[in-house]
């Protein structure tokens, strides 16, 4: 065991970790940040997506020690400073982009990474970008609507081209 420190949601945070401790476990068990979900634990589902130095990664497939010192952003860091939902989070609520909510932290983190690079994505770009995030409830249309709405675009025709 060794003490591992990283900047999480803007604050320096430390906890004990083993060599094998995954970033997802470090966040959830070491730091108590349970918003990051572990769905499949085999790097397929994307529920554990967080940002490491600005890049979206699957935290269940990254070793905590390998990102010691990095800047990590989790779903807990996505709300506005006053605690209200960010534009993207609010769009998920407004457009019913979640049902059970398990995949939602990963969806939000993945979508936020897309919008940081591509502020006005097309519907096809949103769907393609979310390839690594699996949702069992929504059928994806409302998630795509939420991401497009968060980028300030019309969502009236979402799903029509994809049918």
């Amino acid at each position, binding site marked *: 065991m060794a003490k591992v420190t990283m900047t999480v949601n803007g604050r320096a945070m430390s906890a004990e970790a*083993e060599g094998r401790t995954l970033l997802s476990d470090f966040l959830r068990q070491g730091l108590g940040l349970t918003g990051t979900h572990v769905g499949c634990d085999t790097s397929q589902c994307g529920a554990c997506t967080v940002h490491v130095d600005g890049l979206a*990664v699957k935290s269940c*497939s*990254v*070793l905590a020690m*390998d990102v010691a010192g990095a800047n990590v952003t989790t779903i807990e860091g996505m709300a506005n400073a006053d605690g209200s939902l960010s534009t993207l989070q609010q769009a998920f609520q407004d457009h019913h982009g979640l049902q059970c909510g398990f995949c939602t932290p990963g969806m939000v983190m993945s979508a936020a990474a*897309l919008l940081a690079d591509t502020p006005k994505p097309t519907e096809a770009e949103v769907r393609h970008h979310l390839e*690594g995030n699996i949702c069992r409830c929504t059928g994806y249309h409302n998630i795509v609507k939420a991401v497009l709405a968060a980028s300030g675009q019309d969502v009236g025709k979402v799903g029509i081209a994809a049918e």
Partner: protein
Amino acid sequence: MYDFEFVKPASLAEAVAAMGRDGAQALSGGMTLLPTMKQRLNQPDSLVSLNGLAELKGVSVAGGVLTIGAATTHATVAREAGAYPALAALAGQIGDPMVRNRGTIGGSLANNDPAACYPSAVLASGATVVTNQREIAADDYFQGLFSTALEEGEIITAVKFPIPDKAAYVKFAQPASRFALTGVFVAKGPAGVRVAVTGASEDGVFRWTEAEEALSANFAPSALDGLTVEADGMIGDLHGTPEYRAHLVKVITKRAVAAAG
């Protein structure tokens, strides 16, 4: 996952020293290695992370050769390898965005998964795999399923791609894993045409030499009309029979030739 000692060297020399110890295993992006360790299919005594080595990262072009540092991620190659568009396009189709932000070219080549994308580009381009000890020609590097010419403790440092006149990669993706059910990389350069197939054979990536001869005479999809691919030795699993994959090899090669123009 069984525990291990985690080592993160700050230089290639330190990494080489750490890899010299018994039971040491190099860790790059970890997109394959860590899942296999979770399943307890792999149990190294120590993991030597190559992720802190700036000297192993980056994309550069000089004299018609594109050089990619071994620890360069797929996302970086997709973004920065514009001098070799077919290669950049291949990197942009690997896995999903999160996998591309973490997985590396060196890690993919060291693992040599029979359905990985990069081995086909390396073999079709006639690229050179550079290690801390030597330079290995692509034709000598791939030695079957998950097997390579790498010696114990040897670390890939870079890959050098001669940029061809025309090239394309077409992948028929397995929709859940996004690995290639069959993928074909076609490259036409001064030395002729090279065709490398991934995802299809039980021996991993291979060159389809009959197609290379036909395409060297006439670089058009129709040049392949008279050729057949034997199902013998092709992978058979729940996603496709050996016959299906053999059929795909020809179809996808035609598409790749058409895409290369």
